[in-house]
């Protein structure tokens, strides 16, 4: 079975990028195929690739906000599920944005793998 493609979009925090990779590395059905600090760079990475899941931070470079960027990412990769992973409490805002499929706080990083598996239909 081929691995799903997982794209990490995150603010300029290499520690968090590494942590996300560490959390997902044990799952043979997932592959972190790329990392980007801006939505523009993320869309470029997704071009021509089958992205199963986008892990999206809220506070991105160039003052873009993840919640606002979610519809743009969804339009660029309609088959991708979008997981908003943020340090702030944005549950209500995330619920109001239909392009966001799930929301998780970074302090609940323990739940990242099961949430990602559920979004990808692997649970």
């Amino acid at each position, binding site marked *: 079975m081929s691995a799903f493609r997982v794209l990490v979009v995150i603010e300029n*925090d290499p*520690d*968090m990028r590494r*942590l996300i990779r560490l*959390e997902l590395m044990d799952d043979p059905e997932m592959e972190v195929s790329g990392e980007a600090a801006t939505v523009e760079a993320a869309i470029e990475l997704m071009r021509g690739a089958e992205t199963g899941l986008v892990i999206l931070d809220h*506070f991105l470079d160039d003052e873009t906000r993840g919640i606002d960027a979610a519809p743009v990412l969804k339009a660029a990769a309609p088959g991708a599920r979008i997981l908003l992973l943020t340090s*702030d409490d944005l549950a209500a805002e995330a619920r109001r944005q239909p392009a966001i499929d799930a929301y998780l706080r*970074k*302090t609940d*990083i323990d739940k990242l793998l099961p949430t990602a598996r559920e979004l990808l239909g692997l649970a």
Partner: protein
Amino acid sequence: MPEEPTLEELKAANETLREFVAVAAHELRGPMAAILGYASTMRKHWDRFPDEEKVEFLGIIERRSRYLSRLLDSLLTLSKIEAGALEVRPEAVKVAEAIEQALDDVADRSTVEVKAADDLHVMSDPDHLQRIIVNYLRNAGRYGEPPIVVTAVEDGDEVTIIVADQGGGIPEAFASRLFDPFARATTDDAEKGTGLGLSIVRGLAQANDGEVWHEPNEPRGARFGVRLPRASA
């Protein structure tokens, strides 16, 4: 007797405070998430990681914890300044000595040139003056390029101290927000400082009857200034 603030002024102050608390909470949550995350990952997968990697993770936890500690100290200082609760003990301070002491706190003084008359004094809390100069020097080291030049000149009843560098300068769009809390030119800066240093510098200068400013350096770089009341020796 000072005038009572209007309802509009109180509402505006309340909104400013609310925004400040929201930004401060965000700034605290970022490092906290990394600390919790690495601690949790290590605990769950202790046997999976080699010792060298575990040491690296502990290094991340330590670095982010130290940053949090610095941020909390800065937040407390700023809140004291904002509340007018900062203790100020003004005395005549020899400017050249204050600059030398500040340089002792900053790495690589070989890149710094000092031009200050030996008999120049300001009326200031010596700790506050020290903190202002150290902050300017650190910023020049972090964001600017050498040579860094510190000048102190008499200006009527005041003394002007300038720290100038030869770096890329301050982006124009960012210049007006420089002394605001959590102002950073880019998110890359998050690891370099708390984003509170210059707002504390402004508060310290004002508490000592002084003022601060920024202006472009010629031909390139930035100049940060502080003006304080002159004192006799």
